[in-house]
């Protein structure tokens, strides 16, 4: 997989969202309050950035009810995982200066 900068992900809160979801990628989707606690975001901010990531196809939102309470759960899509890995790889290369000596 080629390292590549993902401008959409690099925004600070979106980066946190992607990191939190990537850490939980093979377990259960994260529900909204837990994602909010991990990313330390506000409701409005988190919702807005999740919408952006959903439109890009990087996250999938599932809404259901637990009893009478609505619940929103979020998970990374396959494309989201790949994009996050590409971006992390890119960040590592930048830090390590890979490619600086290329002709």
């Amino acid at each position, binding site marked *: 997989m080629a390292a590549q900068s993902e401008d959409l992900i690099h925004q600070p809160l979106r980066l946190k969202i992607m990191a939190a979801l990537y850490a939980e*990628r093979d377990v259960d989707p994260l529900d909204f309050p837990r994602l909010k606690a991990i990313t330390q975001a506000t409701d409005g901010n988190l919702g807005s950035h999740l919408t952006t990531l959903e439109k890009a196809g990087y996250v999938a939102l599932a809404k259901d009810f637990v009893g009478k309470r609505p619940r929103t759960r979020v998970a990374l899509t396959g494309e989201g995982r790949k994009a996050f890995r590409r971006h992390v790889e890119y960040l590592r290369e930048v830090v390590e200066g890979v490619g600086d000596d290329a002709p």
Partner: protein
Amino acid sequence: MAITPNEAAAALSEIENTTRRGMTLRGYRVAGPILMVWGLIWAVGYVAMGVLPVERWGPVWFILDFVGATVTIIMTGRGYARRATAVKAAVPAGLPWKLALGMVGTAAFVLGVVAIFPQGETAAYLALPGLVTGMIYMSIGLWSGLRYALIGLAVFAATLVGFFVFRSDLAFWMAGVGGGALFLSGLWLRKA
């Protein structure tokens, strides 16, 4: 968009911090129900100390501690195993044995201190487990999450208040306040 090495390092650091925060909160969710179980065990044990003669305290606590240790090992193992299976990773090597040894070590420490305590001072016996438990949680909190430290502080402080203010009813104080504090702390962790 060009990213400088400093920006990239800051982004990687933020990813690491977020991942660690997620792990801490997940640890809280595993620990919450275990703490609730210990809250109940604590309450039952101290009520027993309040109503039974001293010579029955040892057997009662032996049984309760055995039940608590077994439940702790099973619930911790399940908490890790569920995730380990999902991510195809290994359960931390020897985790159940480390937990068991930690609990046996704590029990040995308490029994050792009790053995050299002046005999006949029952309030000190009653307070010792609360102080030790509080210290253990405060220590865990320094490494694994602030909430453990706050829980330890609450148990430690509640034990001292009971010892100095409610000494004649210390067993029931420890059952209600100590056990209740652990149970409520478990609920707090579970909701993390």
